[in-house]
């Protein structure tokens, strides 16, 4: 398989701002729009920031530019549970645009919103109707890209929403929280269908929660969800209403010999995706990536140690709680490799056989710093290894080999 060479293309952010980053600027969601022309970014302050590639006649890859932003969610208080609902954006999903209008779904822990960004003229009344009952005279006060909320999907989730995806045909939206996966109709947000329900009769018996869910890239009837026990379930909406009963399970049986205190925590899947061609599933847990062939469900075709030196640091990672960090994963366009993030401003590109693991280091010098990580690799992670520089969110463009990677408050673009 041809080795993929990714190169630095562009960065938003610099060292100074990165060293003194405020919590609310940390990027919490990244997503390309389906044609690759736009990119959406969500942060902990509840903002959605849109970048675009201006349409030029030049053939070489133009760079992304800031286009517009909007305040998507604000902090709310849940009166029933006496807790805050954070405004942090958890996920972004783009829908097909119409004319010059952009449509994008955003969600925080509880509420999904459909935003429309369009070229509008905002008018105001300068001469009201008088005794003659003439129509009010209007004047344009603002012109340009104005966002407006088109739909709000009612607060249905009892727990925090961890995933949001739209089906390829954009009829359905899938959202999941700890115990349920809901299917929404984009047209009618008032009705949602429970596709999966993991709630046990007795909540005390709860041992497994849902950690993520996603639709198949092309087949609108299939989706997968992942659990904290490292299990992946592939569901087909055509077979039954409640999809869990007829789902295909992919799980690796636990090896009791290798079990230790941390096993349960590190087997929880943080993110999973289908390969672009829909034949494989890449699932990311804390230490490894497992590659599954959908046709073979008893064991993965490959298990890749993302960065083995972390294994020896599990105690420290438990202390500083970094062991609970979640990393995203994306498939490359040719479905032969996957990309996932790591600590210390690094991300990995690995082929799906697990033979070639390349670690890239994000930097502000516009350089591509890459090194090969051989199997059975060990390195002493000294004090310079920064666990705070986490590369948790990334998004793969669907039309070209271009990936957007977020680290703290900075956004990087790499191409191949």
């Amino acid at each position: 398989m041809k080795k993929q060479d990714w190169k630095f293309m562009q960065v938003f952010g610099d060292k100074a701002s990165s060293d003194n980053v405020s919590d609310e600027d940390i990027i919490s969601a990244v997503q390309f729009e389906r044609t690759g022309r736009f990119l959406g970014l969500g942060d902990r302050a509840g903002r959605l920031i849109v970048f675009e590639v201006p349409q030029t006649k030049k053939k070489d890859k133009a760079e992304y530019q800031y286009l517009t932003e909007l305040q998507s969610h604000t902090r709310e208080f849940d009166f029933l549970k006496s807790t805050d609902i954070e405004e942090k954006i958890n996920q972004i999903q783009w829908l097909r645009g119409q004319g010059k209008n952009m449509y994008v779904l955003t969600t925080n822990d509880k509420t999904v919103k459909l935003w429309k960004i369009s070229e509008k003229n905002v008018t105001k009344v300068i001469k009201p109707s008088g005794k003659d009952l003439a129509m009010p005279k209007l004047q344009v006060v603002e012109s340009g890209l104005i966002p407006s909320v088109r739909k709000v999907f009612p607060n249905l989730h009892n727990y925090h929403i961890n995933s949001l995806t739209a089906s390829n045909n954009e009829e359905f939206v899938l959202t999941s929280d700890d115990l349920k996966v809901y299917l929404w109709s984009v047209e009618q947000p008032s009705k949602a269908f429970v596709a999966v329900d993991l709630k046990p009769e007795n909540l005390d018996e709860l041992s497994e929660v849902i950690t993520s869910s996603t639709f198949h890239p092309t087949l609108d009837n299939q989706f997968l969800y992942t659990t904290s026990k490292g299990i992946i379930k592939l569901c087909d909406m055509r077979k039954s209403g409640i999809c869990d009963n007829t789902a295909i399970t992919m799980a690796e049986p636990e090896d009791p010999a290798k079990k230790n205190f941390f096993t349960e925590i590190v087997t929880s899947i943080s993110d999973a995706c289908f390969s672009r061609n829909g034949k494989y599933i890449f699932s990311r847990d804390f230490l490894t990536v497992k590659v599954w062939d959908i046709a073979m469900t008893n064991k993965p075709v490959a298990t890749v140690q993302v960065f083995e030196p972390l294994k020896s640091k599990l105690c420290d990672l438990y202390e500083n709680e970094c062991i609970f960090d979640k990393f995203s994963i994306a498939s490359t366009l040719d479905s032969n490799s996957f990309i996932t993030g790591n600590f210390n401003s690094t991300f990995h590109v690995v082929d799906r056989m697990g033979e070639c693991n390349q670690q890239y280091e994000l930097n502000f010098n516009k350089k591509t710093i890459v090194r090969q990580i051989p199997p059975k690799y060990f390195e002493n992670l000294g004090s310079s290894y920064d666990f705070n520089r986490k590369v948790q969110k990334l998004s793969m463009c669907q039309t070209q080999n271009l990936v957007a990677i977020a680290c703290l408050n900075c956004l990087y673009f790499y191409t191949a």
Partner: protein
Amino acid sequence: MPKIENTTGMPINLIIDELKSDDIRKRIHSVKHLDLIASTIGPDRTKNELIPFIQELLDDDDEVLIELVDSLSRNFVELVGGQAQVLLPTFEALCRVEDASVREKAANQIKKCLTQLPDQKKVEELSIGIIKRLNDSDYYMAKNAVAILIPAIFNQVSQNNQNDLINIILKLSQDQIPQVRKFTSMYFQDLVKHFPLINETFIQNILNSFIKDEQDFIRMYIVDALIQSSKTPFFQKQQNFILNMFKQLAEDQSWRVRFYFCDKLAEIGEAVTKDGYRKNFQNYHLKFLQDAEPEMKSIAALKIERVSGLMDPEDILNKLIPLLKTIQSDTNAFVRNALASSVLALCPIIGKKNTSEQILPIFLTLLKDQDSEVRITLFKKLSLITNVLGVDSLSQSVIPALTELAQDKNWRIRASTIEVLSFFARAIGPEFLSDKVLKLLLDWMGDKVSSVRQTAIQQTAQLISILGLAWADKNLLTKIWAFQSIQNYLHRLTVLFTINQITSQLTNDYILKTIVPILQAMAKDSVANIRSNVCRTSIQLAKEKGGNIADPMKKILQTLSDDQDAEVKYQAKSALESL
């Protein structure tokens, strides 16, 4: 047309200004009263000023647009002086919005406006223009309206235009965006009605391309197109084609498509006639009753009522009823509920003996179902079995079940059960309302929960209208009047609320004889709330009945206008003034 009266309490110019208010509720309010504005300024100014101004409102939230399209649908053609074509550009613009219900209503209004234009050539010109513009729009959702409009005007346009429209539909059916194909599929049923203007090959080509579509919601609507085409001569010519396609849909991999097929079974049966149904589709229905997916069992059970008329009674006995025995104990309550709502429809078809042997056991099992909803659904269809087997034989089992529901812990169940009584009264008659049942009604009138008491009072009014005042007085009302002496004042109030509810059904004689003494007694009640309600009841009786009732009511109110409680005094005095 007469001018519309301004009942808003606001000056018209303010309503006009608020069309562009920052507050969405004010905008909605103004949009609701567009007809008032139009009526005030007259048809010419509406045409020249208001309608163009509405263009400025089109960029608003869905909530406002829904109100806008509804508002414009009400007699606006009259308000523009009868010139329907003036409204067309506005409706055309509303066909481009994101909300599907607004688009559909706007398209239907375009249809309506076009029918009101006298010049046929103009209609053709305008409609083709609208369709082509919407079809060429950047906004793919505008094609929804295209799919709605083309069937509506197809037979009114020239051959050349018809060919153009056919080509548009062909393109839409192959559009890469699934939603566009969905619109085309949904409304294809309207287009096939124009056979033979629409030729055979075209229909077959389109249906063939839809059935291969990977999207469930596109294959689904083929059912409707096939039903409609079965009602045209197309059916005679292409019977096999239609039947084969129906079968493919009945066997579709996706349960949602099978569900839609099952939902339309009755219509399919009507279209292909009884013989066609029995030969081709009966088995599918029976198979659906055994489907692994509970939603399928549920829809199949629900349809029993309607397809039973298409089946041979022998088949019902030998093939259908055996399957019901598993369904009656299905783990899903909604499946059992579906069965409860339709199984009793079989009774009149299979006759008394078979009902007693086959349906009665199912009926008795469902009567004891753990889910109260199932039991209530069953009750609503009770007349179907009592007509066949007679009330007496059933009251032994039904009354205890009713009593149990009447005392259910959940007040909503108790309230729903009360409504069942009027079903009985209507369908079976007063014999069913034995002492035991009437005692239940009285218990409900004294229920702890006020909503239950309210529903019981409403039911009493219903029973009087069905069974008459004389019956009600003898069996029911006398006992209700006895509530006057209950210690808890809330139950004494029930007496007054009942009088309020049944005022229109009382005769003046009855009022003079029975009601007036009650009111006179309660006007001396120690609780002020009661006396206050006596005022309300008295004024209502006086106003509604007039005549010889007014005087006794006035006397009561006069007594109360000297009451020690300020509120009662005020009420009595203002009541007297209004008389």
